[in-house]
C-alpha cells in the first residue's frame, strides 16, 4: 500500500506530512526510507506532521524512535506535530513522549529548531 509522503521546507526544517496508514505495520518502512534519503541530502531537521495519523503501532513507534536517535547523532533532530491523543498514549507507553518533542502549533515547532535545541 503506497502512500505519498508530501514534504515542504521551512528554512532548514523539512516538514513531512505523514499519511494515515504510513505509521501502521510495515508501511512504516516507507517513512524510514524517505528519512534515510533526506539524511543523505543533508536534511537533518525533520518535523513529522501526524495530523492524518489515526493508527500508530509498534512499527511506527520503532521508526520514530530509531530515526530520532540517528538524526540526533548527526546533529539533527526529529520532532512531532499534531500527534493525536491516541498517538501520544502509545508514545507514552514506550516512554518516548518525554524525550521526543511534540507540538500542536507548527510555528512553535519550527521556532524550536532554531532555538539551539539541536546543538
Amino acid at each position: 500500500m503506497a502512500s505519498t509522503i508530501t514534504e515542504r521546507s521551512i528554512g532548514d526544517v523539512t516538514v513531512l506530512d505523514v499519511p494515515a496508514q504510513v505509521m501502521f505495520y510495515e508501511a512504516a518502512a516507507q517513512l524510514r526510507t524517505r528519512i534515510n534519503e533526506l539524511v543523505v541530502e543533508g536534511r537533518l531537521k525533520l518535523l513529522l506532521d501526524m495530523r492524518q495519523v489515526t493508527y500508530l503501532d509498534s512499527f511506527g513507534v520503532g521508526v520514530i524512535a530509531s530515526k530520532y536517535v540517528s538524526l540526533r547523532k548527526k546533529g539533527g533532530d526529529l520532532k512531532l506535530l499534531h500527534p493525536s491523543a491516541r498517538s501520544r498514549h502509545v508514545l507514552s507507553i514506550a516512554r518516548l513522549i518525554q524525550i521526543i518533542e511534540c507540538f500542536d502549533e507548527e510555528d512553535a515547532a519550527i521556532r524550536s529548531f532554531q532555538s539551539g535545541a539541536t546543538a
Partner: protein
Amino acid sequence: MNMTTVTRDETARLAALRRYRILDTEPERAFDDLALLASHICETPIALITLVDADRQWFKAHPGIAVTQTSRAVSFCSHAIEQSGLFIIPDASEDVRFRDNPFVASGPRFRFYAGAPLLAREGEALGTLCVIDRVPRMLSETQREALDALRRQVEGQLELRRNLHELKIALAARDQAEADVATLSSLMPYCSTCQLDMTIPAEPSSIPRIAEGVTAVLRRKGWPEDDVIAVELSVQEAIANAIRHGCRNDPTQHIQCCVIIDASGEVVIVVRDPGTGFDATAVPNPLQSENLFKSSGRGVFLINTLMDRVEYLDGGREVQMRKRKTDA
C-alpha cells in the same frame, strides 16, 4: 463458489422457521453486532439478517436500511435460500432475474448482493446473512470466508435463542414460577455472549479489519473509549506479530483468531499462528536504555501493558489476552 439449486419442501421449511419463534421479535444486540461486522468486513453500506416467511422476508437486523420487511416477491433472499452456498449477484441491473426488481430499477437501486443461507438444525434454509451495495462489485476471497464465518455465528445465535426458549418451557413446567424466574435470570447473561471464531489470511489488510470489527462490537456494548483503544491496539499488535513472525509474511498461511465478549464485561482474544513460536520471557524490555530507541521489539510489551492478563501458550504460537471493561 459452485452453487446448486436445492429443491425444498416449503411446508417443512416454514415449520422449521416457526420453531425458532423469531419473526417479529424485538432487535437483539447479538444479531445487530453480527450484521454490523458483516457490513464492516465486506465494506458494504447495508447488511441484513433476513428470515424468509411465506409471503414476506422479515429483517432481524438491518444496519444501513430502515425498512424491517419486504414482500417475498421482490426478495433476493428467496433466491439465495434456494442455493447451497454463497449466492452472489455482482450487478443486479445486468441480471435478467433482477433487473426489473423495484429495488434495482428504482427506489434504492441496489446493484450488488451476496447472501449466505442460514440453516436450521433440521437443515432447512430459514433466511440469509446478506450484504448489499448500491454499486456493482465482488467480494474478495477473504471477505467470502469472513461472511461464511459470520453466517455460522448467526446460526449459532439462532440455535442459542431457540435452545433458550425450549429451556424456558422445560423449566416453567418443572419449577414454581418464582424459582423459574431466578434460574432464568442466571441464564440471561449467556444470551448476550458473543463469540467469533475466525481464520484469516496472513496479510496486513486483515489487521485493521479484525481490529475494527472487534472495537465496533465493544463500542456498541458501551465500553469506555480508553478500553476500546487498548483492545484495538493489542489486537493489531498480536495479529501483526502472527503475520510477521509466525507466518513470515506468507499470505498463503492463516491465523486463527477467537474473540469472546461476554455480558460480564470481559473480552478474551486468542490469536494463534502456525509458526515455530517464541519465548515471550526472552523478549528484551524496550524501556531499558539500550533498547529505548530500537526500531523493533515493542509489540509484546504494548500488549502486556494494555491488557489485564496475557498468556503465551504452546511455545508462543498462541497468545491469550483478557481485558475487563473499566467501571464507569
